[in-house]
C-alpha cells in the first residue's frame, strides 16, 4: 500500500485544479453579462418587463415587485434590460417599482414615447388568468425618486435582523435538543411548519379576527407536539440506547412523514395568514417596515429574553446547560436527565412553532415544506454558534439572517442562501466547535 506520497501529491494537484475551476466558475458568474434575470423561478406566475432608454435596454436596474400577502421580490435587469419575477398568485395586483438610483446618472422614468402615457417609477399591474403580465419602463432625462445605497443597506440590515431573530427562535431549540440528546433533528423543520399550519387551520375555523387566539393555541399545541414526540418516540429510543446516526435517520423519516402529512391537509399551494398584507410604514429615508414586521421583531426579542433568563437563572435551565456540557456527569450528579430533556423538547417545539408563524409572515405564505426551506439555514446558524450552545445559536442566527438578506445586494437574490451554506461548510471545516463551542477529547 503506497497511497501516501503519490496520492497526496495527486490530490494536491487535483485540489489546485478544482480550486481554479471553482474560481473560474465564480468569475464567470460575476463577470458574465447578466442573463435575463429571473427571481423566484419556482413560483407559478410571472411578472416581467423591460427597462429601455431610447429603445436600448438598460442593464442592472433594480426593480421591486410587491403584492398581496406581503409578497416582495427584487430583480435587476439584464444586459437587454429584461427582468422576470415569479409571483405566487394570479388574478392579483402587484406593484412594480423601479429604483431610480440604479439608473444611469441623470436619467429617470419618463413617458412612454408611443402612448404618451405619463408614467412614474411606481406602477401597478394585474396578473390576469393567463398568469403572466409585462410591465415596461421607459426612461430618459428627468427627475427621479431615489433610494440611496445607505437606505438600501439599512433596509437589508433590518430585514436581516428580523429574519435572523426568527431563525434564532428555531435554532436555539435545535441547539438545545442537540446539546442534551445528541440528535441532529431534521424534523425540526416540521416543528417550525407546525406552528404556521396550525395557526392557519385555527384561523380557518375561528375566523380572521381570532388570529391572536389562534397563535396562542398554536403555541400550546406546539408544546404538545414537543411533549408528544419526546414521550412517544425519542424517550423510548433513548431507553433502547439507539445510536446517534440511527436517531438522525429516524428524524429524517419523521420529517418526511410529517411534511407530506401537511401537504395532505393543506395541499401543495401557498396560503396566507390574515394581516400578511399589512401596509408598510415609512420609518426614515426610504426605509419601510410593516406593522407585522415590527411586532414580529418585538415578540422575537421578548421571547429570546425570556428564554435566556430561563436558561441562565432557573433550575431546569441550569440543569439543561449542565447536561449539554457533560451528560454522564450531570446524570451522575443527580440531575433528572429525562425530565430535563422532556422540558427541552417542549421549549424547543414552542420556539420552533412560533418561529414558523413568523416565517409565514416573513416569506410570506404558508406551505407544507416551508420549514424545510430554512432547515439548512437553521443548521448553519446552530453550527456557526457551536452545536449545542444556545447562546451561540442566537448569535449564529442573527449573523446568518443578516448575511442572507444583505448578500442579495451583491449576488443574485436566487443565490442568497448559497452564501449561508458556504459559510456553514466553512465553519464545519475550520472551526467545527463553532464560534463559542470548545473542542472535544479525541481518542
Amino acid at each position, binding site marked *: 500500500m503506497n497511497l501516501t506520497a503519490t496520492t497526496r501529491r495527486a*490530490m494536491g494537484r*487535483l485540489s489546485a485544479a478544482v480550486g481554479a475551476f471553482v474560481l473560474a466558475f465564480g468569475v464567470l458568474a460575476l463577470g458574465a453579462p447578466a442573463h435575463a434575470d*429571473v427571481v423566484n423561478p419556482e413560483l407559478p406566475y410571472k411578472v416581467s418587463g423591460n427597462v429601455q432608454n431610447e429603445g436600448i435596454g438598460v442593464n442592472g436596474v433594480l426593480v421591486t415587485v410587491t403584492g398581496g400577502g406581503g409578497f416582495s421580490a427584487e430583480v435587476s435587469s439584464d444586459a437587454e434590460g429584461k427582468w422576470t419575477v415569479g409571483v405566487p398568485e394570479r388574478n392579483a395586483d402587484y406593484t412594480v417599482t423601479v429604483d431610480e438610483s440604479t439608473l444611469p446618472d441623470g436619467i429617470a422614468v419618463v413617458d412612454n414615447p408611443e402612448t404618451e402615457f405619463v408614467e412614474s417609477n411606481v406602477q401597478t399591474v394585474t396578473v390576469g388568468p393567463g398568469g403572466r403580465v409585462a410591465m415596461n419602463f421607459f426612461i430618459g432625462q428627468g427627475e427621479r425618486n431615489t433610494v440611496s445605497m445607505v437606505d438600501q443597506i439599512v433596509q437589508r440590515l433590518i430585514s436581516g435582523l428580523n429574519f435572523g431573530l426568527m431563525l434564532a427562535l428555531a435554532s436555539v431549540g435545535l441547539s438545545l435538543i442537540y446539546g442534551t440528546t445528541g440528535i*441532529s433533528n431534521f424534523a425540526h423543520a416540521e416543528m417550525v411548519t407546525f406552528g404556521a399550519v396550525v395557526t392557519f387551520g385555527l384561523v380557518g375555523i375561528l375566523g380572521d379576527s381570532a388570529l391572536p387566539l389562534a397563535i396562542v393555541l398554536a403555541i400550546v399545541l406546539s408544546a404538545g407536539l414537543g411533549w408528544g414526540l419526546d414521550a412517544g418516540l425519542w424517550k423510548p429510543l433513548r431507553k433502547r440506547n439507539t445510536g446517534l446516526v440511527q436517531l438522525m435517520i429516524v428524524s429524517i423519516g419523521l420529517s*418526511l412523514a410529517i411534511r407530506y402529512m401537511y401537504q*395532505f391537509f393543506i*395541499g401543495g399551494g401557498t396560503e396566507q395568514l390574515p394581516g400578511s398584507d399589512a401596509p408598510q410604514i415609512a420609518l426614515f429615508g426610504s426605509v419601510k417596515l410593516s406593522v407585522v414586521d415590527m411586532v414580529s421583531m418585538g415578540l422575537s426579542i421578548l421571547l429570546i429574553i425570556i428564554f435566556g433568563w430561563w436558561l441562565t437563572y432557573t433550575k431546569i435551565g441550569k440543569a439543561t446547560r449542565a447536561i449539554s456540557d457533560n451528560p454522564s456527569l450531570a446524570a451522575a450528579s443527580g440531575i433528572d436527565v429525562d425530565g430535563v430533556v422532556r422540558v427541552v423538547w417542549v421549549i424547543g417545539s414552542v420556539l420552533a412553532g412560533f418561529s414558523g408563524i413568523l416565517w409565514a409572515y416573513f416569506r410570506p405564505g404558508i406551505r407544507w415544506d416551508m420549514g424545510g426551506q430554512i432547515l439548512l439555514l437553521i443548521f448553519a446558524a446552530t453550527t456557526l454558534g457551536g452545536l449545542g450552545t444556545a447562546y451561540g445559536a442566537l448569535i449564529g442566527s442573527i449573523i446568518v439572517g443578516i448575511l442572507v438578506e444583505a448578500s442579495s445586494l451583491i449576488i443574485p437574490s436566487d443565490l442568497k442562501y448559497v452564501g449561508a451554506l458556504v459559510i456553514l461548510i466553512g465553519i464545519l471545516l475550520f472551526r467545527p466547535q463553532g464560534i463559542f463551542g470548545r473542542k472535544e477529547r479525541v481518542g
Partner: protein
Amino acid sequence: MDFLGILSSTASFILDPTTMAYALAGLGLAIHFGFAGLLNMGMAGFMALGAYGYAIGILTFGLPWYLAAFVGIGASIVFALILGIPTLRLRGDYLAIVTIAAAEIIRLLLLTAVFTDVTGSADGLTGFNGTGGTVTNPTPGAGGFNDANPIPSGEYGFEPFLDNERTWFIRIVGMLILVGATFAVWRLVNSPWGRVIKGIREDEDAVRSLGKNVFAYKMQALVIGGVLGSLGGLLLALSTNVNSSVYVTSLTFFIWTALLLGGAATVFGPLVGSVIFWTLQAFLGLVFPALAKAGLLPFSGIQAAQIRFIIVGVILVLLVIFRPQGIFGNKKELTFVK
C-alpha cells in the same frame, strides 16, 4: 377499480430506469454508509452532476453522448474531491450536514437564473438525447443516445413489459451498468480493500493505528460511491429531461430509504430495496387514488396520492428502529455503530 391494471403498472416499475437509477445511487450510498460509514446526505448532488454533466456536455460542449456521460462522471469525481479533501476529517454527523448543504448548493446553482444559458434554470434541459428526443419532449437532432439504439423500431416483450425499442434500449443500458456496478462493488467489498473500509466504519482510529491511510481510503470510497450516484443521475437523464427540481434533498432521503429497506451493508440490498421502494410507491400511488375514486377513502385523489410519501417516512422510521439491518440484511451486519 382496475386492480389488474394497477398490478401491471406496478410491476412495470421493476424494470423502470428510475428504479435502476435508485439502485445505482443506493449502491453508492452502500459504499459510503454501509461499508465505509460515511454519512453522505448529499447523494442528490452527485446524481444531479451525473445528469446535468451529461446534458450540458451535449448541449453546451457539443460532445457525443458517450463522451458527455463522462462529463457527468468527471464532475461527480471533482465534487467528491472538493467535498472530501476538507470534510473527511470531520465527525460523522458533521459530514452529513456538509454533504446535504453541498448538494443544496449544487441544486441552487443549477436553478439560478445566472447560468440559464447552460443549465436552463427552472426549466431544466431537454432535447439532448437525439432523434426522438426525450419521451416528453421530442426534439429532432442526430447523433444522440437514441440514435445509437441498435434495436429496430417496434414493440417488444410481454405485459407489463411490452414497450418500444427506445424504452428497451434504456432498460438494457441501465441493466448493463447496474450489473457491472454491482459486480464491481461485490468484488471490492469482499477484498482486503473492503476489509479496510469496513474497519474504518467501525473505528477509524483503530485502523489508523495499524498503519492504514484512513483518509485515502475514505476518499476512494467517497469517489466510488459518488461515481455510482452520478451513474444513477445519468440513467435518469438518458430516459427523460433533466430538471433541478428532481435533485432535491428528498431524493437523497428516498434513496436512503431504499438502501435501508434492502440492507445498508449488503451488495444486493440497494437493488432489492429500490425495487421494493418503487413498486410500493407505484402501487400505493395507484391504489389509494383508485380507492378514493371508488369512494372507499374519504379524501380527494390528489390527497390519496400523497399518502404514499407519508408512508415512506413512516417506513424509514420503523426500519431504522426495528430492522436496521434491512429486510434481507443479516442481524449481525447491523451497520449502526454506537
